């Protein structure tokens, strides 16, 4: 992960460990059956190692690989037949989506994230996460963030999962594309992520979208594999008055939920 601003040890939590209680929608895989997740937040992990953010990122990254790697080599026996039009893409809509995302990522990857990892992304940037449904079943998700990083406003793709029977049909590409579009419209200058150098599927997907391999990170992942930092640079917006006016028009059409109910009577019943 690029890891946003400064380490949160400053002013936040200090040197004490704090205990937090949070109720999560029940997850089948949890060992805490009473739906409560006992969590100890420790700043120690940061203190012990100044690069802990990159280690956390490294850990996250090593999990990402499994989403795409299995496309190669795995028997395509359990593929589900569907027409692309049957896939419904939805922006993150609230707490009810959180367990779907968590289950998907937990299911496909070898190790679970703490619930706070998910919350960090979907609470702060709900408009950047998308889910793909097929006949009511959640089959894929993308989770992202964006923010200021060394004087560039940049988007970051944290997680991308499509369940095995639905792979190879462009769902991942569609999820990522939607998220990137929102980033672009929100003023991001670039988008970035890391991927294992062996993850051919991911590298091909992002390559087709215009990402370049900006850097190679030696032994980035805990299993010793290198990573590429992939980056997509958006073209500089033209400083042309008529074009920027057009852009404004496009934006206002795209955000129906911001229009006051009285102007759009047909949207009165937005939940």
């Amino acid at each position: 992960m690029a890891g946003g601003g400064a380490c949160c040890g400053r002013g936040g939590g200090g040197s004490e460990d704090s205990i937090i209680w949070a109720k999560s929608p029940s997850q089948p895989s949890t060992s805490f059956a009473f739906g409560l997740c006992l969590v100890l937040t420790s700043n120690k992990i940061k203190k012990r190692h100044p690069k802990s953010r990159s280690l956390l990122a490294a850990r996250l990254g090593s999990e990402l690989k499994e989403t795409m790697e299995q496309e190669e080599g795995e028997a395509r026996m359990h593929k589900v037949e569907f027409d692309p039009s049957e896939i419904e893409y939805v922006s993150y809509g609230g707490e009810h989506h959180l367990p779907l995302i968590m289950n998907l990522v937990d299911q496909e990857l070898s190790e679970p994230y703490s619930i706070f990892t998910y919350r960090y992304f979907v609470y702060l940037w709900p408009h950047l996460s998308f889910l793909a449904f097929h006949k009511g079943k959640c089959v894929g998700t993308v989770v992202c963030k964006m923010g200021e990083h060394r004087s560039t406003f940049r988007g970051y793709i944290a997680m991308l999962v499509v369940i095995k029977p639905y792979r190879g049909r462009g769902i991942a590409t569609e999820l990522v594309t939607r998220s990137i579009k929102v980033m672009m419209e929100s003023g991001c200058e670039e988008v970035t992520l890391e991927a294992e150098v062996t993850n051919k599927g991911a590298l091909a997907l992002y390559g087709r979208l215009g990402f370049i391999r900006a850097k190679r990170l030696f032994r980035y992942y805990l299993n010793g594999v290198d990573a590429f930092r992939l980056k997509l640079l958006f073209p500089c917006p033209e400083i042309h008055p008529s074009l920027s006016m057009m852009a404004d028009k496009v934006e206002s059409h795209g955000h129906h939920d911001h229009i006051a109910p009285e102007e759009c009577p047909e949207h009165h019943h937005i939940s």
Partner: protein
Amino acid sequence: MAERDAEEATMSHQAPERSSIPSGDNTVWADISPLLDAACKELGDGEMIHGENFNLFAAMSALEIMDPKMDSGIVSKYCSLDEAIEDGAAPVPLSHDKTIDVQSIIDIMDHLLACEATWHSGHSLAQTVFSCIYLLRLDRTSSHAILHSYCRVIRATCKAVVSVVSDARTHEEEDLFSMTYGLPLDGDGDEKCLSFLNAVEETICRQLRACKAPSSKKRVLEDIEPLQHNLDLEEGFCKALLCRLRFRKHFFHTLACMRRPQGRGFEMARKHIASCILELESILKSAEFLRFGVCGTCKDGIEGKTTASGHTPIGFDASLNSRSAAPTPPRAIKILSWKRAVEYFVKLLHDLDVICSYSLDPSLEGVLRFVVQFQKSKPDLVARAHLQVLLVQDGKLYGRYPIFAVITKASALPEFTKNHDIQKSECFMQLGQLVINMLKILCTNAAWQRRKLGKILQDWRVIYVQLELALRNEVGEVSSNMDDEKMSVKILRHVLNWVEEQTYWIASRFLMLGFELDLYSPSEYCMVYWYLYVVLIKLAEKTHFRMAVSNEPIKRKGKKKKDSLKEVAKESRVHPAILFLQCHMCLAEGLTMMLAALRNDLMVLQSQNPFNTEQERFLQHFELLQKACIPDHISYPSFKESTSYARLSTLVMYNYFKDAQRIAKEIKSSFSNDPEKLAELRRIEQVAEHNGIALNVISRVGALDPSLKV
């Protein structure tokens, strides 16, 4: 509710059985499960109870207690090292049966070798070598001479290796290596570890002699107790132990010799390296004997095992160090197999041998060529650290040549200029630092190296501007000492040109490393070769200028006297080094044009995507070069201009590949003493030939899928 109680009950049974922590004088345990329960019922989905300072970003580091994937304490079998020892996890002696004891100690030696190789390959010392309980409490082993001396030398070796790598000051990607907190790496008297080892070696030698002697002579020999009780196996075990002990001895000596400053110990080191390799061969050979072991049956499937015998060694527990291990989520490290470990050490020793064979060339050009060549074999951290501490010592090259002297020599200035006062100026002090920094960077792993090379381009540009300013000032001033001023002007002019040459060299390395690291996709090759071409033009220009103003005669390599006249005539035109660069330039230009023509004529190798254009990708790839104006007036439009008219039909006529082949052939004789250069020339010829043929085929047949390997 009942369901919850039942689940709570199972929860407490699933928790590992530990001695319960007693209530203290001022403390008492209270069950707050009902309170938690009630609080839980009150919370709505997604609601959280948290402190004021709670922050979602920080919370991502949260650990779920008792989750074995995050809570490193939960995975251990033992609470502490003492508990493990009490439980008999590391008995001394390893067995009361001497034969099994010997077998076991060989297994420990093998596993330690595997751990060491795993550590070198990028894991923490705590989870590899120091997963050995015997090492963690070395004093316990003092009654067992073999185990004790072996552990001592391991500890001393690890300390020596950590020292070298720390001195080279490695960086983020490789910093797990030198983490040693909490580990007992310092031992009293470890410097004498070899004397312990020698004593043990001596004893085993005598035991070996004793068991090999014909029975009639046995009484004549000293009354020595055999190593173990099974006479049939005595020879095998003695030999197996001896080669392992000797390997450690010679390896320790190698490291000690290589640490001597200015490469003074290199000759000795090479001897020890040769011995190490011989002992490793013996170690490998011993595997067959050990596999059969005491039972006489061969243990199958030792692939992936960490010991020659295939047995699991006793006395290791990686979880004991979880508190002093690297602060990563707890994951079991996969220790390299014993075979892979031996292979690792063979390679390491070969890499160290290359360093020890290096002639300590005082010319910077020679150093750079050596380092680039050395890096081609992809040496690991330990070898690279040794190279770096050799090259840069006390701010001098090899600890011998002051950097300013190196710079004046590289700039083709006369030797006496190395004492000039101008070296004390701010500019030259900084330039010296840049050169030292560059040498260090060139010793790092390719991925990190490329990033750093890109970053320092800016610094080299800045120093150039500063030197230019200094030159203008010098030229403008009128000094009382006319000779001195003229010299400083000359120095500045030469150094300025050399700085530019060096900058372009760095740029060319930056671009070339991108291929090695697989950073370019096929649709980007065209722009990369183009940029490489424009950089090489500049590099050749600056190199040529340096050669032209050089005071030294052009060295002729491997010339026979009768040919010398012919060669002089040829060489007086262009120096072979320049021609060598021209080969590369022809290839680069040829490849650029061919790829451009393929795109223009056949629409292949293009990349259309919804979010950006080729221009953005150009800007990204060459951002650091563009920022430093390397070269000047180069931009995406100039790339488009150069390539938009490329056509297969015209390319066949102006065949750059043929030029490359021709030049390569011409200069082969100039490099007849340089096997590496000759090998490279041969590769250039091959590449040129393949591409030339491909070009012909494509232009005739219009095939869509040529092989475009560099």
